[in-house]
């Protein structure tokens, strides 16, 4: 068993934290082996950023995805840059408000993550909404495990907001249907 996940977006959107949460959920709370890596550098803010997680029940050698099972995109530029190695059955989740040009001739999941976050009062939790949605859409990650990882990873004064964002995302994911 091996799952490879890529989360991408603008620098500053929290894609690295989102990847960290998923990696932590899988490795600490689900007892799998997991590695998380990220693109990092001058493009980390302003340009496209990505965070990648490989989860396996065996020892993980090469730590980068070789073929992505789940792609989460939160910006147009990132979506365009980082979807070259997707398969036909790769699960794709995007925020249609941020990735406007997403007609690539195959169905994908659309989660208005930023909109949901803004309704909660702070678009800073867009990434957590996405993590919630990805949890229910992808199905592999246990919601409890991811919830624990979210709670571990955010400052205490934002715990409540992040928890809400996660639950909203989880719910949005449950109701989401893939579409072109």
């Amino acid at each position, binding site marked *: 068993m091996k799952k490879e996940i890529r989360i991408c977006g603008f620098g500053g959107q929290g894609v690295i934290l989102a990847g960290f949460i998923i990696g932590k959920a899988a490795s600490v709370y*689900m007892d*799998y082996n997991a590695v998380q890596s990220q693109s990092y550098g001058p493009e980390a803010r302003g340009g496209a950023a990505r965070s990648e997680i490989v989860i396996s029940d065996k020892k993980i050698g090469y730590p980068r995805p070789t073929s992505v099972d789940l792609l989460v995109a939160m910006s147009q530029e990132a979506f365009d840059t980082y979807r070259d190695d997707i398969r036909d059955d790769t699960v794709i989740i995007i925020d249609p408000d941020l990735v406007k040009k997403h007609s690539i001739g195959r169905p994908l999941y659309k989660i208005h993550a930023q909109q949901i976050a803004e309704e909660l009062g702070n678009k800073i939790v867009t990434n957590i909404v996405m993590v919630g949605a990805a949890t229910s859409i992808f199905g592999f990650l246990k919601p*409890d*495990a991811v919830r*624990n990882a979210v709670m*571990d990873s955010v400052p205490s004064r934002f715990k409540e907001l992040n928890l809400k964002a996660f639950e909203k995302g989880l719910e949005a994911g449950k109701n989401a249907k893939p579409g072109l």
Partner: protein
Amino acid sequence: MGEIKTAGELNKKYLREGMWPTIFCNGCGNGVVLEYTFWALEELGLDMDKVAFASGIGCSSRLPGYINADGLHTTHGRAIAFATGLKAANPDLTVIIFTGDGDCAGIGGNHFIHAARRNIDMTVIMINNFIYGMTGGQLAPTTPIGGIATTAPYGNIEHPFDLCVVAKALGASYVARWTVSHPYQPIKSIKEGIQKKGFSYIEFLAPCPTAYGRRNKLGDIQRLWEWYDKNTILIEDYERIMKYGDEKEKERAKKMIQIGVFQDVEKPEFFTEYQKLVERLQGNTITKTSSVKSKKMVVKK
């Protein structure tokens, strides 16, 4: 002052057995500075087990080798950085650094600047002979304009570096400059510098008859020593002249090197502040980096 009254007894106490006489040239000022340091230590009555010396590379940097105490003879220009670590590991140590003008103002300038800025409790005794003596008389950052060096054979055209001004501007706790030709004020300054909790910088104008004097018509040791008397001015005198003097006096004073105590202030010292930080952090209940244990659970696959 303790029991010791004479140089002979002083030397027996502070000199490392078998190391003296020095490798220094005839008439060199390094030995004088060492003697002044011994007198200052003697007057302070410090336990020499708790005094450590550090130095870089150059003639002056050989001084710790002659002292019967722990000595760290390090790489060129880095003594202050080494001493920073030493002081961090054992703040009970009195740390004294011997350095030269090339070592401190040249290659080690950055370490000097930042240790002064952090106000780390150490005493830097800089022996300024205007030249790279050990390597044979090359141009130093402190060589006066017009001075002859092997690498400035037609006379120096660079502006010399005044580290006292720099140390003062950086807010070092204690800054002084003296010449080696008079003993009492320097001994007092070394004492004050060691006692000061913070960065103390004491510069000595010290003759180098071999590498500097010879090339600059000051080869005669006596004349070289006299040069220091004739070309230095006490900061108090300088200020008085600038205030009340006539133009001629002012012109003359401006050409001289100022000596005296330039700064003597109380200022928070780095490791004292660091200790407060540690106490603040350890006093508080430690905020955990990770989850609350009771909440932790492992979801079965």
